[in-house]
């Protein structure tokens, strides 16, 4: 595994995985801004990730694109690359790198739980596992997202004269919340912040069931009573949110596990809905991967490193530039 360094760079063939600065060849795990950036020469990713990058940064955000299907092998010299579903958001992938019989998996961001908005996570056996650790503490044990979304629906029923603004990341989480609402037979139009529109249209085009949605417009205030509005978290504190009648501020995120965090951010209805694995899923994945060497990237790596060492696994944190904890989508 010496072929890859702590910046996820393979010097031998000049390939980066999720680099934050423009590079020659970049393998991109998924479309979130802390992984997919503008300006690479050559981007290798799933078709959906490439589509999403083009929606966000324009058609010319890289000079050349190579779309890969899940499971399709791509070779550069004696390195073989294969993408597998990561279950994080639409198009998200893990990267399997094979070289001289050594199998290394970079999970990227992933979750094990079921999600109708993307292909479900596939476990890959390997020798070295580079795993994320966004929720790498035993306090994070995500509840069933169905129960969380029911809380929202109940609150909408009880508070008829309020509108509910749900903070959710524009890519992935927003559409997942919409899909979860549809699974619970919530059939009303869902109103969305303008910045979500193109991505929602894309999800619809990809046949993800997010139902009927409409961009928020300057309607009479009372129009939004009893409605659900989805907006990126940054809009919650913005002047934007003041145009709505008695808004109840909600947030869909794994961080909402911690009441103090919810309170700090002024969230009245926290919904613990995460697109990352929780503690038990991280441990389970490490165990089932059969990897003997575990490297841990962004998030709460300390506890996970400690745990792996206790299991007699070789483990250390990788500190990747530009990704401090708690700023991750």
């Amino acid at each position: 595994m010496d072929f890859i360094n702590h910046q996820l760079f393979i010097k031998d063939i000049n390939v980066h995985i999720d680099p934050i600065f423009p590079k020659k060849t970049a393998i991109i795990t998924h479309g979130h801004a802390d992984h997919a950036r503008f300006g690479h020469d050559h981007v290798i990713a799933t078709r959906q990730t490439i589509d999403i990058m083009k929606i966000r940064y324009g058609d010319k955000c890289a000079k050349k694109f190579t779309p890969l299907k899940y499971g399709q092998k791509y070779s550069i010299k004696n390195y073989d690359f294969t993408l597998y579903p990561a279950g994080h958001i639409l198009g998200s992938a893990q990267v399997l790198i094979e070289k001289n019989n050594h199998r290394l998996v970079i999970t990227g961001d992933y979750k094990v739980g079921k999600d109708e908005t993307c292909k479900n996570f596939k476990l890959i056996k390997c020798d070295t596992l580079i795993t994320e650790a966004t929720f790498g503490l035993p306090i994070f044990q995500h509840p069933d997202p169905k129960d969380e979304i029911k809380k929202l629906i109940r609150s909408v029923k009880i508070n008829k004269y309020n509108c509910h603004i749900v903070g959710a990341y524009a890519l992935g989480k927003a559409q997942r919340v919409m899909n979860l609402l549809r699974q619970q037979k919530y059939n009303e139009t869902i109103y969305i912040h303008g910045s979500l529109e193109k991505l929602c249209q894309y999800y619809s085009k990809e046949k993800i069931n997010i139902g009927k949605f409409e961009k928020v417009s300057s309607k009479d205030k009372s129009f939004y009573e009893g409605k659900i509005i989805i907006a990126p978290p940054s809009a919650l504190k913005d002047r934007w949110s003041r145009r709505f009648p008695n808004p109840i501020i909600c947030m869909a995120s794994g961080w909402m596990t911690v009441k103090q965090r919810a309170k700090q951010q002024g969230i009245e209805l926290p919904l613990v809905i995460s697109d990352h694995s929780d503690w038990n899923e991280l441990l389970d994945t490490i165990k089932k991967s059969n990897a003997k060497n575990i490297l841990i990237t962004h998030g709460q790596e300390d506890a996970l490193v400690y745990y792996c060492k206790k299991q007699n696994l070789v483990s250390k944190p990788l500190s990747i530039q530009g990704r401090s904890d708690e700023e991750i989508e």
Partner: protein
Amino acid sequence: MKKFSSLLHNLILTPSRNTKIKLLQDYFKILDINRAYALAILSDQLSFQFIKASKLKELVYEQVDQHLFDYSYDYVGDLAETISLIWPTNKEGKSQNLSTLIENIKKIKKSEINIEFSKVLSELSNNERWTLIKICTGGLRIGVSERLVKNALADLYNKSVNEIEEIWHGLEFPYENLFQWLRNETSKPKIDFKKLFHPMMLANPIDEEKDFKRLNASEFQAEYKWDGIRVQLMVSSKTVSLYSRTGDNISSAFPEIIENTKGDAVIDGELLVGRNFKPSGFNDLQQRLNRKKASKDLQEKFPVFIRAYDILFYKGKDLRKLFLYERRKYLEKFQKENKTNQIDLSLTIKFKTWKELTKYKNNVHDDLNEGVMIKLKNSEYLPGRKKGYWYKWKKNPKLVDAILMYAQRGHGKRSSYYSDFTFGVWKENELVPIGKAYSGYTDKELLILDKFIRNNTTNKFGPVREVKKEIILEVAFDDVFPSSRHKSGVAMRFPRIHRIRWDKLVNDVINIDQFKKEFKIE
């Protein structure tokens, strides 16, 4: 328990006062024994003797790996929440109501606490566990004041909040008389006001720029502000009792006061340590605090007395509606009639202008006063921190430049930030920590420091981060004492971060010997 824990959960997350009141009113629509417990909990009057933070940690270490717990606690910054989240989830037991649960816990024998209390925790949901631990450790911090609860009750049952306020401290669990009155079944509960702790009148800090332009010096009386603990002394022919500022009865810790005081009055004053009414400093007073009893030896070594500020009752007469200058006459009369070695009067300072008062504020009485109090002569004795009557004017703090050495995440509302800072000065070629501060900085400075710490960590010791030694902090503190418990040999009183000194370099910082010399420490 489900209802009460979801009430607390909603209260903590609701920023709106009106919504909080509405939530409380929904809950207190019924007045039963569960609500009585809830009221006791919300007004912080219920506590468990043997389930404290240290016991809870002991229990959680039996359930989960200690290191994993410590990492988590460091991240969450709230003990109750960390334990409730990390506790292994069992099958939830039969849901119990609040009163049954508490009564059952009270019945647990001390020798069986580990097993029995763990069992209780295992059978609760996350949120109920959080609630129960909050109840056990006291101090809910859910953004609900006692006053808000009273307001909600008054409004719900058509009473005036002042009426509730008046009888509040005379009420006792399970509040049957209160509940009956609220439901209009009986008249207002009768309370013996003389025996009651009366909420104290508190002062606001003065705003030197605004207030001194606005306020007329001749309408005010000034006294020294003493650095002891504020107390209320109740004296009658039958009993003498002493209360702390929060209304706790602390009589048993100060027998010399209880035995020697005479008369019939309620006195407001400052408890100090010293001989012949000469206070000897907070360090000495500390020897007498947080003790249930005081041995003869301790009384001899650290004798206490009360410096009286005010009088609330005199021979059964309620003086609280009188003005301060009128009450002062009663106070002097009381003192003359009942001279003892345990009570003297707080001196009033003669001054004509605010400027003149400045010299009294700074450096008089060998540094033992903290500044001055400025009180409106025409002020009634009003409970709480009402604006416009009493002001405190603290003397300028002592200042020292020190180097940021270590940082740790804060607790509660600062838990996501590195907000606890350890700083030090030179000792030969090394740095030695002289104190730790977690306040004083602005929000902007906190963000800068937090970012610096994340990007400049050189070492980690569990939750503590050691950082590059390049940030100079100007630290303000009230006082500094010799201490054998600290490596530096000094202990600061109330250190806080005054500002970041971007203009200074690490080599500008003094060494520990210079520090001791400057602040006169042996």
